């Protein structure tokens, strides 16, 4: 499964974001947490997930790869939408 990323600016304190696509379909929105979040600064947070089995608000994940792995797991568990 190939997930691609597109940078995006988000509203609110954590502005740096990524749209996550499976082919041309949007599957999730990630944000990079800023200094407000102390120990989790620099980690990635799943703001929104459009797969039925992933939960918005999951994370924070230490790396972008970890976040994408979690999104991939959610997609694999949702065969109906592939």
């Amino acid at each position, binding site marked *: 499964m190939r997930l691609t990323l597109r940078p995006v600016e988000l509203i609110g*304190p954590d502005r740096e974001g990524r749209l996550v696509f499976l082919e041309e379909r949007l599957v999730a929105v990630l944000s990079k947490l800023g200094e407000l979040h102390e120990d989790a600064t620099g980690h990635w947070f799943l703001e929104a997930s459009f797969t039925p089995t992933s939960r918005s608000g999951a994370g924070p994940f230490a790396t972008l790869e970890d976040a994408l792995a979690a999104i991939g797991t959610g997609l694999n568990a949702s065969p109906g939408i592939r």
Partner: protein
Amino acid sequence: MTTIAEDSPHARLIRKLETITVLNRDDRDAIAALPLRAKSFEENQDLVRQGDRPSECCLLVEGFVCRYKVLGEGQRQIMSFHLPGDIPDLQSLHLKVMDHGLGALTPVTVAFIPHEAMEEITRSRPTIAAAFWRDTLIDAAVFREWLAGVGRRSAHQRIAHLICELCTRLKALGLIDNPSFQLMVTQAEVADALGLSSVHVNRVLQDLRRDGLIAIQGRVLKILDWEGLKEAGDFDSEYLHLRHDPS
């Protein structure tokens, strides 16, 4: 008349019940005569576990306790917060198996009351039986309010509402006398109670600070604008059914 120290377990229970009902001297004396077994717990310890069959009720004397369930993927849902004077497992008198756990959110002191003693006092003192029934009904009213919040309120409203609720309950119990109190719960625990992530809780607390509604210094939360916070949280204390609204 029996004399009891103001911060004794019996006094805590009397004060709690008197926030929701009227007790006479005989009722207070009967409560003061309840046999108790005190026990301390560390933060994060379980007082009672899901599946337990308790033979005692636990009266919270010091500290802060939650009711919770752990779901399949290890996620925790906190269903209520409890303050000194509460008996969070009162229902174990009639529901023999615990369908949830009770966890200590801070170091906690509880006083265990044998079920036989609770059954005896409810048989001999109808006013106390009615007070426990009323407390259980209010418990259900709080669950309804939380369900409405988790189902339909925004993250901002849920957090503002919870701060208003805790402040109102602490004031009613005489545990604080100004709108400033020690935050006894972590952001992760607030998140687990309100169906949010810690990230959202952190963002909303910063927003409430920026809007001049609260101030946070260390673990002390101060309400700067009570009316504004009530409005932000869509908070009306009616569901707590207190005899005197302390705000």
